[in-house]
């Protein structure tokens, strides 16, 4: 589908809108439906000192650490997952003190995003009692003013500059659909100041109008759309493709180089053909 719309931009143009030091919420979870082509483009453009906000990052945060793009990570659980275990370059960056880590439970990070999405300075969250994370992050607890005697932990608002999500389909106006779980993408797109969508493909607006209940993000909230087929590689994008496990293995092989891995990416192949 060839469409011109002011919202449709190239991957390079989209990544160029991110400044050094920006705070980015990245969609998906672990090796699934992450905006991985976008993350690689940030690396190509040499972005530095980024703040990455994501409940369960993996490949994305790891490769950004590997390329030296990260200043701070605010995350719940970081791993390659599958059968790959820890995220090696992320792990090294934290162990060497090269990046600042704000360690969350997935739901405390979400509470911070909810506070931003709801326009309130803090958000209470269930649980957390007895966890050292509260003292570590200097979270406050608030006594229920309605007399239940309950204390609840409250998380300060987390408002990323940009949420970047990888979606199955977008309209030329930015309306966005995801199949299968949308993970935490909904709250990210509500919490961030700006929303970028990398989509597997464009679908005509008419298709969205036929079943508007399927639209996760309405177009007016979306600043830019880049169309990158297989852009979640080497991860999965349900139901289109699965994790490319051999590619992840090659990525994990410390004998291999980052450049070799980057050269394998679908967006590189695409550019070579263009």
């Amino acid at each position, binding site marked *: 589908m060839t469409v011109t719309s002011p919202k449709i931009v190239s991957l390079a143009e989209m990544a160029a809108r991110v400044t050094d030091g920006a705070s980015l919420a990245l969609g998906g979870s672990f090796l699934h439906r992450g905006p991985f082509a976008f993350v690689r483009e940030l690396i190509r453009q040499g972005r530095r000192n980024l703040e990455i906000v994501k409940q369960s990052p993996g490949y994305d945060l790891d490769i950004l650490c590997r390329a030296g793009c990260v200043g701070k990570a605010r995350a719940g659980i970081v791993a390659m997952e599958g059968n790959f275990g820890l995220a090696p370059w992320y792990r090294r960056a934290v162990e060497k003190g090269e990046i600042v880590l704000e360690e969350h439970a997935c739901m405390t990070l979400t509470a911070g995003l909810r506070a931003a999405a709801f326009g309130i300075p803090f958000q209470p969250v*269930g649980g957390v009692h007895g966890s050292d994370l509260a003292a570590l992050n200097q979270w406050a607890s608030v006594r229920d003013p309605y007399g239940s005697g309950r204390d609840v932990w409250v998380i300060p608002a987390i408002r990323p500059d940009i949420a970047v999500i990888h979606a199955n389909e977008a309209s030329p106006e930015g309306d966005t659909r995801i199949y299968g779980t949308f993970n935490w993408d909904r709250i990210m797109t509500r919490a961030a100041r700006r929303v970028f969508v990398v989509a597997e493909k464009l679908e005509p607006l008419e298709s969205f109008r036929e079943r508007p209940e399927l639209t996760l993000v309405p177009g007016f909230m979306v600043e830019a759309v880049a169309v990158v087929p297989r852009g979640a590689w080497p991860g999965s994008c349900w139901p289109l493709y699965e994790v490319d496990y051999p590619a992840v293995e090659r990525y994990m092989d410390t004998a291999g180089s980052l450049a070799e891995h980057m050269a394998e990416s679908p967006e590189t192949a695409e550019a070579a053909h263009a």
Partner: protein
Amino acid sequence: MPEAWTGFSYIVTNLARFIRPGEVTFSGVNSTPPMLACLLAKRAYDFGFTWINVAGGVQPTPSRIPISSSDPVLSEGSAAIFANEDFYDLCTRGGMDLCFLGAAQVDGLGRTNVSVIGDWHRPKVRLPGGGGGAVMLPTARRAVTWRTEHSKRALVGKLDFVTAAGGMHGVVTPVAVFVKRDGRLALQSWHPEASLEEVRERTGFAFDADGAVPTAAPTARESAALRALDPQGRFESDAKVALR
């Protein structure tokens, strides 16, 4: 003659035995054994229960068993997508009956560390981090964890960091099944090829073993279910679980 346990079948099957009829049971990320336990329970037990998972699945019927326990194939066949905010909220409001949660270290109170080995600020090993635990462990009705290694560095006297506290109902290792009793983990049963003494020796915390017995052998249906889920032994080989 009953079948013998392997370390792997011991963990998966004993996790499955924590699942109760009619309950809402959740399996999460980085959680291959609980994923297999839920699938096993669906095949091996006569009762129904609601399996929800981190891939948004609700009673899914996945066409393949994925390597990643958060693979979206785990929502295949589901009649709804119950995404992350939804299952966390269900848990914090008291609607999650059984929650499987990962752990690197567990202490005698059933608290967990998934954050760090060493000092948090000067880590020897940076672990994956908080994940679901700090919110789900205190709010799920019951939480159960597992370790593929039974040692004093996994079952510790003192956690390097308390990532999550409260609520841990059960712990399964290659040689033991613990359940919480009077606020502390107590031994419920041990692998018939191990012994109470061996479990004590390899555990970093003191525990009550009143009433503990050798673990009942896998039933024919449990064994058949696990074989059907892992016909090539791929998960068993990935998990690298050894009795000792």
